[in-house]
């Protein structure tokens, strides 16, 4: 795949991913990942210090399905929505069928009552693979938030 095509396909993947979350189609969200994936939400500080814990840590697509099921069936939180603004992917490595890329993001959270806040800003640190069917999927997505602060609660994934 040439560089421009890679970039285009990554950007399309990211915009599909963002639209899925922002449109509250969370049941489809795990499908952006391969089955043996890593999804983690952490902070730039934790990565800098080598701290492994995240506010969300999943090492399987099934865990992501559980996350969605919990949000739908178990957890209590005020109605809210996200708007992801996702920047241009920056490919840092492309080898052995995997694309390593980092992509800046900004998420504005709008609460039930109309209150809007910049909820999270940071980088997606991704390892993207091509499935047998030719689709791009995340083998790893580390959501590295610039701030160590998570206001009130983080229900919807980033």
């Amino acid at each position, binding site marked *: 795949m040439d560089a421009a095509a890679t970039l285009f396909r990554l950007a399309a993947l990211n915009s599909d991913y963002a639209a899925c979350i922002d449109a509250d189609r969370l049941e489809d969200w795990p499908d952006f990942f391969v089955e043996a994936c890593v999804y983690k*939400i*952490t*902070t730039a*500080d*934790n990565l800098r*210090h080598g*701290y*492994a*814990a*995240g*506010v*969300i*840590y*999943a*090492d*399987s697509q*099934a*865990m992501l*399905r*559980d*996350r969605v*099921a*919990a949000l739908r*069936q*178990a*957890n*209590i*939180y*005020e109605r809210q929505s996200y708007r992801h603004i996702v920047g241009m992917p920056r490919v840092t490595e492309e080898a052995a069928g995997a694309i390593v890329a980092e992509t800046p993001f900004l998420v504005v959270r709008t609460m039930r009552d109309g209150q809007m806040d910049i909820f999270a800003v940071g980088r997606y640190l991704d390892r993207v693979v091509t499935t047998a069917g030719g689709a791009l999927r995340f083998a790893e997505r580390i959501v590295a938030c610039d701030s*160590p*602060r*998570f*206001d*009130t*609660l*983080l*229900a919807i994934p980033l």
Partner: protein
Amino acid sequence: MASATVDQQAETIGTPWAPGLTRVPYRVYQDPAILQAEQKRIFEGPAWHFLCLEADIPHQGDYRASFVGGMPVIAVRGEAGAIHAFENRCAHRGALIAFEDAGSVKEFTCAYHAWRYDLRGNLCSIAFQRGVGGKGGMPAAFQMQDHGPRKLRTATIGGLVFGSLADDPPPLADYLGPDIAARIRRVLHKPVEVIGRFVQPLPNNWKLYAENVKDTYHASLLHLFFTTFRITRFSQAGGVTVSADGAHHASATIAKLEAHDSVYKDEALRSDSEFRLHDPSLLDAVDEFGDSIQLQILTVFPTLVLQQVHNCLAVRQIVPRGVDAMDLHWTYIGFADDTKAMRTRRLKQANLVGPAGYVSMEDGCIGGFVQRGIAAADDALSVIEMGGATAESQPTRATETAVRGFWQTYRAYMGL
């Protein structure tokens, strides 16, 4: 003068509060004068406050910035393993002495005018003290030893560093009492490592969170995730240990499950769903303390929470940020000798707690629901009567005994 004014206000405000532990006027969560009085009477009073972990400051010169109520403080490792703590405020013009969260220094230098402090918090040099070219400088009579940030006494247990601003606080062991000290040592029995940090700003008065953590009654009702996966149920063994003075608590849940668990069905509560995990490895817990206690939530008055949720260990520090705001500082820990499998287990189980926790997510918003609900209810009273009117240890978690313990201690400190 300022503190006299605060005292008068607090007394005036406190007058209508009838004795007892089962009613709390909502004004205590909303009145700026109460918050001011708390700083003087609790945070700068004869209590011990969690500052950091010993693991945060292993070597001489390592420091960590922390808070005692609204007061910024520095905890630092001094000579021969000693731990010092002092107010993070330059004696000159009041600037922060350290403005990073942590670091390692030989001495502290205030950025504003380069006044320097040793690791004990003693002012040890003043830039241009003798002036320049014989002009300017400090008066000859100025004595550095008469100036410096307020110092805290420090004490440790199980690698937790506590500080007190009181001249003569009780020994930490007496402050905690034997039962709570034993419950701390149960978890923190060998060297720990930090594995992650997060800050969770909450839109509520700090006391609403302090109560929430001591409120074993809500745990199985607000948090569906726990009950559904039988991580805690009223019908399991467990109970609440409250220190003799009511200040501190430890709740425990024993792993034993009952074969026919009908409590939730009988009460027609929403908690008893058939919800099951696709990937149950989340709950692949091991009994690492060898006593079958799956959950232990422990508080040290006023602002420390020590958490063992299966194999997810963390300390949480409550930092007040105004009458209707606080920060919860989460520090996730593991043991230094963890196997890789155990460390992975801790990372997975961290999904249960924190800002995105399957279990504690609701605790993030519930205090805000109260704060908003009581906006026009200064004179109304909350009802805290589950399990009686006193604050002793009880062999059940269907009780608010530890919450009453908080208020027993709070009222004693506050004179309210």
